[in-house]
């Protein structure tokens, strides 16, 4: 099953990257986004609209290809030492930044050191194993404190993208972040396929093709194929779609699932559903007492399993996603993530089993549980209505409290909830991030549930230094088994990224991590 999914991802990527027609050059694309970027810097990007744009402006040393394979980026090759305590990379010859200056080893050292600097950006923790970075000519050596199976993936992730050391040295500002802000538009220097041409906050962001980009298209000339991209910010979904239908933009992201069928039926629109690592789930408070001191019935494993069995995930996928998505098969990550196990959808709808479990748990009929949802979210409204009805069949009375985003986040951190709706998209190409977030107690108390399983914790820590891929896969398989069994979440579904494009746009991809890739995009004119 997993191989099939990997193949699908590969097929999509390949079909998108190597279109049937040959790529035409030229033209400017207009793309409608739901939110604006604020600071697109590899180490400071902490919001999706920023993170997902980084690789358009800055390239990484390595690249992730189909099926999770690693290939060369700015570095032509790499090798990991036998003891796993160092990595050496060879920087390509003759590559330049967007201002024409050469990309040199010193830029790599500068970029990696600032990325690993815990005082600067929020992602330094991902590179905690890095001890030092040194260079010799075109060769860069990264010395690690401990063996780190994720480090190669990290070198293909946005936060290690390469910036210009010279530009930063010459930039105005006292702190690294101030310098980064100063360089964000005027004086922009990047290593990616595009450069930042202009940015009017909240309205328009313009990218221009980087004439010095190293990667080549299928016609042997430098990428990108298009001359530039205009990003319009249109927060309202309905308006965004109207703009696409009116032909004022060439692409619109985050199409509500309720409209996917309508878009698919429109001959002038290409409705893409890109596989993603996005999962929707509901953390359950597993602590024995609620925040207010009352006894928490959800501390009982059997009740948690019962509500999982009583939830018809297929029905939810139909109601909320209109069929665009599927129930999760691994409780710990989306099926598109490396090392995801797939033994069929978790906790398939089984009302009898649910009733039996609840009887065993001795939970009396009429027990109240409160679901905390996001105010104003129509999706959450549907989930609530469906769960209310489904759980009433096992005697659970589901109440609701609607709160806004910040309040929900605060409740998650303080544990003042029974169960709440939540979502996640991977930022890195390795399962360690999501597994740590969802299941490892020290990171975030297992996404706020309070679930603390020693076997899981030990396995997780071991997997972070396990260099043998087969052994690591086994560790992850066991972790997912434990997690599914313990059901600290209401497992729900994973959904694709819904992007609607005009038929003339080819070669656009939104990767499973959410990155909007425009490097191989071209316009059929």
């Amino acid at each position, binding site marked *: 099953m997993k191989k099939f999914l990997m193949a699908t991802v590969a097929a999509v990527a390949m079909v998108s990257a190597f279109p049937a027609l040959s790529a035409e050059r030229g033209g400017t694309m207009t793309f409608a986004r739901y939110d604006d970027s604020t600071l697109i810097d590899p180490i400071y990007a902490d919001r999706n609209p920023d993170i997902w744009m980084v690789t358009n402006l800055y390239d990484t040393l390595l690249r992730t290809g189909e099926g999770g394979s690693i290939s060369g980026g700015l570095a032509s090759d790499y090798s990991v030492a036998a003891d796993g305590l160092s990595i050496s990379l060879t920087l390509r010859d003759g590559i330049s930044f967007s201002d024409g200056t050469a990309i040199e080893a010193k830029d790599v050292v500068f970029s990696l050191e600032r990325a690993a600097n815990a005082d600067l950006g929020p992602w330094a923790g991902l590179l905690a194993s890095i001890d030092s970075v040194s260079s010799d000519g075109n060769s860069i050596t990264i010395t690690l404190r401990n063996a780190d199976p994720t480090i190669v993936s990290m070198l293909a992730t946005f936060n290690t993208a390469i910036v210009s050391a010279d530009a930063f040295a010459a930039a105005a500002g006292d702190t690294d972040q101030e310098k980064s802000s100063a360089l964000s538009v005027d004086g922009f220097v990047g290593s990616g396929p595009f450069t930042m041409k202009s940015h009017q*906050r909240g309205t328009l962001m313009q990218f221009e093709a980087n004439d010095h980009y190293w990667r080549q298209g299928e016609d042997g000339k430098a990428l990108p194929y298009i001359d530039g991209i205009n990003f319009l910010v249109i927060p309202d979904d309905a*308006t965004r779609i109207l703009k696409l239908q009116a032909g004022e933009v060439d692409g619109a992201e985050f199409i509500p699932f309720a409209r996917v069928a309508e878009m698919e039926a429109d001959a002038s629109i290409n409705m893409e559903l890109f596989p993603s690592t996005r999962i929707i789930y509901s953390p359950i408070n597993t602590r024995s007492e609620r925040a207010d001191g009352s006894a928490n019935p959800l501390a009982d494993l059997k009740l948690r399993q019962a509500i999982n069995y009583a939830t018809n995930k297929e029905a939810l996928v139909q109601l909320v996603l209109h069929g665009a998505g599927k129930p999760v098969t691994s409780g710990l990550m989306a099926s598109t993530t490396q090392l995801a196990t797939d033994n069929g959808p978790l906790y398939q709808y089984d009302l009898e089993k649910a009733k039996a479990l609840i009887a065993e748990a001795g939970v009396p009929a009429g027990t109240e549980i409160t679901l905390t949802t996001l105010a104003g979210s129509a999706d959450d409204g549907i989930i609530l209505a469906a769960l209310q009805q489904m759980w009433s069949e096992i005697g659970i009375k589901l109440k609701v409290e609607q709160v806004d985003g910040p309040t929900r986040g605060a409740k998650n951190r303080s544990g003042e909830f029974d169960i709440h709706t939540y979502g996640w998209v991977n930022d890195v190409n390795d399962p360690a991030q999501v597994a740590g977030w969802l299941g490892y107690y020290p990171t975030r108390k297992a996404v706020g549930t309070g679930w603390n399983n020693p076997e899981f914790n030990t396995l997780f820590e071991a997997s972070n230094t396990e260099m043998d891929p087969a052994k690591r896969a086994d560790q992850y398989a066991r972790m997912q088994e434990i997690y599914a069994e313990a059901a600290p979440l209401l497992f729900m579904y994973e959904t694709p990224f819904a992007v609607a494009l005009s038929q003339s746009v080819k070669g656009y991809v939104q990767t499973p991590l959410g990155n909007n890739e425009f490097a191989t995009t071209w316009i059929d004119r």
Partner: protein
Amino acid sequence: MSTLSYLLSRLLQIIPTFLIVMVIIFLLVRALPGDPAIAMADAKATEEQLEQIRQRLGLDQPMWMQFGYFVKNVFTGNLGDSILLKAPVTQVIIERLPASGFLTLYAVLFSVIIAGPLAFVAALNRNNWIDVSVRSIFQIGLSTPVFYIGLLLLTFLAAKLRWFPVGGYGATFGEHMYHLLLPALTVALYTSAIIMRNLRSSVIEVIDAEYVQFARAKGLPEHVILGRHVLRNAMISTVTLLGLSIGNLMSGTLVTETIFAVPGVGRLMLDAIFARDYPLIQGLTLTFAVLVSIIFLLTDMIQAWLDPRLRVS
């Protein structure tokens, strides 16, 4: 009381009002539930990162100290940095204010153009079918939710018929006029109904008034009467009403800006509240307060100039 002393006394009144406004803003913003650090930092942030944000915002200090800094900063023109947009608040507001200002003025223009003539028509045809039809149409405008009308206009006139662009703001002055026409019309819907009703009332009152009847008896032609007396008094009440409605106009732009994707301060305010961006919320509310105060003052001045009776306090 002379105009100057009136002006001075009004200005003096603004100071305590402004202080109360600042206290309200300060308390309101801090009463928002949910740690702003959590709101700003995205779910994946660690405790240390949150602490950093709290320190940057000065949230770890006692309330009275925070208020002190707040007042001092306001009077030195420093409104802090927006956490959401990672830029100085003053800069952000200056960037976004023109769009809302343009939209508001445009809407006021439409309101006056639509309401003015029709109010006269209705008043002069008092109680016959012309009057009733005009009033009914405006009644409907008064009762329709702004977001629905905006949506309809956007869908049919912009997306379907392509007579107008689908939202946005444009780059040049001409483009602004084109892009903002539909949203301005949407906002004007409500205000024009209020103005029409009020104007019609004032015109009727003046027409019936004794001094106008006296002027008629003296043989003054009707258009002179209309021009000199009716128009002047009608203007007084309209100006007052417009001034008072400005606050509501700004509220109307909030929803309209969201639907039509206009990059103004209304939408910015919504985003700021949802993201718990304290500095931005404070800066925006202060800006609104200052602008509205100035407009009220101007309205009072114009009123006093137009109607000498009002100068007596």
